[in-house]
């Protein structure tokens, strides 16, 4: 259900609005500051253009909210705050739940591993494959906003949507940079 042209329009609107807010407040920013503001408004614009339909977008906004300075941008770009409220709290409690599950799993897994050692070689290949998949899933969870608290299926779905959205972001930013470059 990814409508990319709709997302593009929403993103462009919100990002330009965000840039106006950021760049008008301080006339003389150094390069680093301006770059951070540009990136921040792009990220917030992208996440709020999703309109709270995906977990990663909610998590991104929740992360950004931690810094109080960003509230002006968030309030202007994402409209009614209620959609994103509680996303951060949900993640904190999810973390606790997952941590206790992990401790339980680890204590149960040792017995299984000892049994597995005695079985055939083909199982070894499966074992290695499973380990690789687990390792890579862990890395992916760190890359997608809010990924730490997702299960295997959700992280893949969210990664799909996240990649499509990131592409839109990159595409629009490239066009803006080229247009600005031509005007200079």
């Amino acid at each position, binding site marked *: 259900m990814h409508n990319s042209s709709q997302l593009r329009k929403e993103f462009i609107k919100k990002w330009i609005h965000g840039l106006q807010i950021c*760049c008008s407040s301080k006339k003389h920013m150094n390069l680093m500051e301006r770059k951070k503001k540009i990136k921040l408004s792009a990220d917030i614009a992208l996440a709020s253009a999703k309109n709270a339909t995906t977990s990663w977008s909610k998590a991104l906004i929740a992360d950004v909210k931690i810094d109080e300075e960003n509230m002006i941008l968030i309030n202007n770009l994402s409209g009614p705050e209620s959609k994103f409220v509680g996303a951060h709290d949900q993640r904190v409690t999810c973390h606790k739940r997952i941590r206790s599950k992990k401790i339980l799993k680890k204590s149960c897994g040792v017995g299984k591993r000892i049994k597995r050692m005695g079985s055939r070689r083909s199982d070894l290949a499966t074992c290695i494959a499973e380990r690789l998949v687990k390792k890579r899933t862990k890395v992916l969870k760190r890359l997608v906003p809010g990924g730490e608290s997702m299960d295997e299926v959700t992280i*893949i779905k969210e990664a799909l949507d996240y990649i499509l959205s990131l592409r839109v972001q990159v595409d629009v930013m490239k066009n803006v940079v080229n247009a600005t470059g031509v005007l200079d």
Partner: protein
Amino acid sequence: MSSRRSREAPRITDDQIIQLLSKLQQLLPEIRNRRSNKASASKVLQETCNYVRSLHQEVDDLSDRLSQLLSTVDANSPEASIIQSLIM
């Protein structure tokens, strides 16, 4: 309490996961050019991570460039007024 609730949720089938992974595979630039259906789950996940990282890096670089461009805009030129009215 909460674990009991999650056990009642429908079990995720292998087919579902395979489907999702193949969708992901379609998006990845690396694997798409090779023969399809040949990539393993771990390969797809690895390429996904690499792709997300490269997209993040692109956003970062583009923000850099835009910042430099906006700072070098000559304040008196007609072009500046266009950019200023649009972005600043």
